[in-house]
């Protein structure tokens, strides 16, 4: 029934034939200039990472000791072929930032991919199947949530060495519980909805119901959570490499760049500042995009 302040059947008015709710929400997302701007920035970073050899003016590992500690080009003593200056070993800061994005973004994406897949499957199983499956998974989630994250990550890498796989594992081992909790909650809420009952009445198997009926309907919050967490993971990875446990030298990584520049903060400030700025911008753009997605997909925020 109509209630005061709303109009009849608004849903019919807001979409055109064949347009899915997803498409409509994406259109809403795209209507916000802020979202578009930061989406462009995030995509820019991704392109930069993918096309690093094309964009970087120099080889990130090429050291020229005669050109060490050059300031950014617009300052006195700077050189336009080394726009953001050089580090203590004479390596071009800009090129190292460009190549460094690869590590951050790649690791961030991998971790989120792994964590989300595991988390979603675990959450679906816990929420829909209930019983001992739920008990086991929920207790596991509770235990992991209590882990002091960084200490364990450090211990893990100290034990097994800082390879790429180990880094991804160290970051993902706890990360999956976040999407898992979200998905479990949503599954619990959705499993008694009538269209799920209808599927049961038709004789659909449990697997079918979990994957084909429930999952598509809870993807929105998962998408939003994943983008937010990606920003978080990137910072975590930067912390790891800041501590020397991440991607190892001579490979460029934003975190280690910030760390290396610490002792030069007073005079050669650009060594830490620009990689720090890069982290900031990437994380900011991901956060704004995820916020925009959440607003676009949550019916309470528009209409």
């Amino acid at each position, binding site marked *: 029934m109509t209630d005061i302040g709303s109009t009849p*059947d608004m*849903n*019919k008015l807001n*979409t055109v*034939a*064949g*347009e*899915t*709710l997803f498409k409509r929400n994406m259109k809403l997302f795209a209507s916000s200039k802020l979202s578009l701007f930061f989406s462009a920035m995030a995509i820019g970073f991704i392109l930069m990472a993918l096309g690093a050899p094309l964009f970087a003016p120099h080889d990130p590992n090429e050291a020229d000791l005669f050109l060490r500690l050059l300031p950014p080009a617009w300052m006195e003593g700077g050189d336009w072929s080394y726009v953001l200056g050089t580090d203590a070993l004479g390596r071009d800061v800009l090129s190292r930032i460009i190549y460094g994005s690869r590590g951050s973004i790649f690791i961030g994406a991998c971790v989120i991919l792994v964590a989300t897949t595991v988390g979603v499957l675990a959450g679906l199983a816990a929420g829909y199947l209930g019983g001992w499956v739920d008990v086991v998974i929920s207790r596991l989630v509770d235990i992991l949530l209590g882990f002091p994250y960084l200490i364990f990550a450090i211990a893990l890498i100290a034990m097994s060495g800082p390879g790429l796989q180990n880094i991804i594992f160290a970051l993902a081992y706890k990360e999956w519980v976040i999407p898992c909790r979200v998905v479990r909650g949503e599954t619990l809420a959705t499993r008694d*909805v*009538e*269209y799920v*009952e*209808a*599927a*049961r*009445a*038709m*004789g*659909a198997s449990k697997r*079918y119901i979990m994957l084909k*009926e429930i999952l*598509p*309907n809870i993807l929105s919050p998962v998408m939003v959570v994943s983008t937010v967490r990606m920003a978080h993971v990137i910072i975590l990875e930067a912390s790891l490499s800041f501590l020397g446990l991440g991607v190892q030298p001579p490979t460029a990584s934003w975190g280690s760049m910030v760390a290396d520049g610490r002792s030069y903060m007073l005079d050669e400030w650009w060594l830490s500042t620009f990689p720090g700025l890069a982290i900031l911008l990437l994380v900011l753009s991901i956060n704004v995009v995820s916020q925009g997605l959440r607003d676009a997909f949550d019916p309470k925020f528009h209409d």
Partner: protein
Amino acid sequence: MTDMLKVRGLVKHYDTRRGIWGKLTGNQGALVQAVSGVDITIQQGKTLGLIGESGCGKSTLGRAILRLHEPTSGTIEFDGVDIINLDAEAMKAMRQKMQIIFQDPYASLNPRKTVRQIIGQPLKIHGKVSDAEVDGRVQEMMERVGLKVGQMNRYPHQFSGGQRQRIGIARALILNPKFVVCDEPVSALDVSIQAQIIELLAELKRDLGLTYLFISHDISVIGYVSERIAVMYLGKIVEEGDTHTILNSPMHPYTQALLSSVPQVDRTGVTKDRIRLTGDLPSPVDPPRGCRFHTRCQYASEICKTDEPLYQTVSGTHSVACHLVGNSG
């Protein structure tokens, strides 16, 4: 005239009690006695109307009969087959013959699927049918229920309540079931649309030879669509008989009160001869001892407070569970 459905002693309890743990945490849980021993028989091609107010267990009964909620005990014989003891695979096959139409046209359709996918889904689950065959059947069903075939690729939110209910009906009937549980199929619709759906269901029943269990709280609708009516109160059937008898000469005090409470277009002014029930509906967690209706019954006597009345046949096909009727006790 064969019996399509024969239910005996069906019980469905939800037990969330936690014993000692419950006492410690202060959350004792409860035993919800939703359905407490129900006998029902429906003949082929007929509609049994199931009427009752909230908490009486009628929706639970409908779902328990289809084993959507597993019955706690009792027997269900469908088309001669005992379905309670069927294994998962056999039950899946049986589901093609027994379907359900839901009340809420908004919650009963998956918002992420197109109409074509929703209606065709049962076919895909049950058979290795080609996409072309599925499409053909879907189009056939859509026409039959009065939907435009050209709208096949639209999503549920693009349709009105009445149209969504038609989609739900098409989905339920695409496997050619023999028996359909209609759980308040028109209660959530506007009055003028209700009539459309009621007529559609009647037409389909005639054309496809269906048997219905029609659940509703709307007595006028039930009276119109059913050949027989069963009245439910707090998990038990208190009266059952053919429509005319129940509506014109009800014997159970609850049925009488129910019928006198219905506001009717032909009556003017507040009627003084309305039977007033005092108090609220008791909850199925803690049903009254003896006859469950005695706390609100104007005729309640001593025996009603202690003994449960037997469900007895009073005349022909008219059965009642009341101490003051027939010769129980």
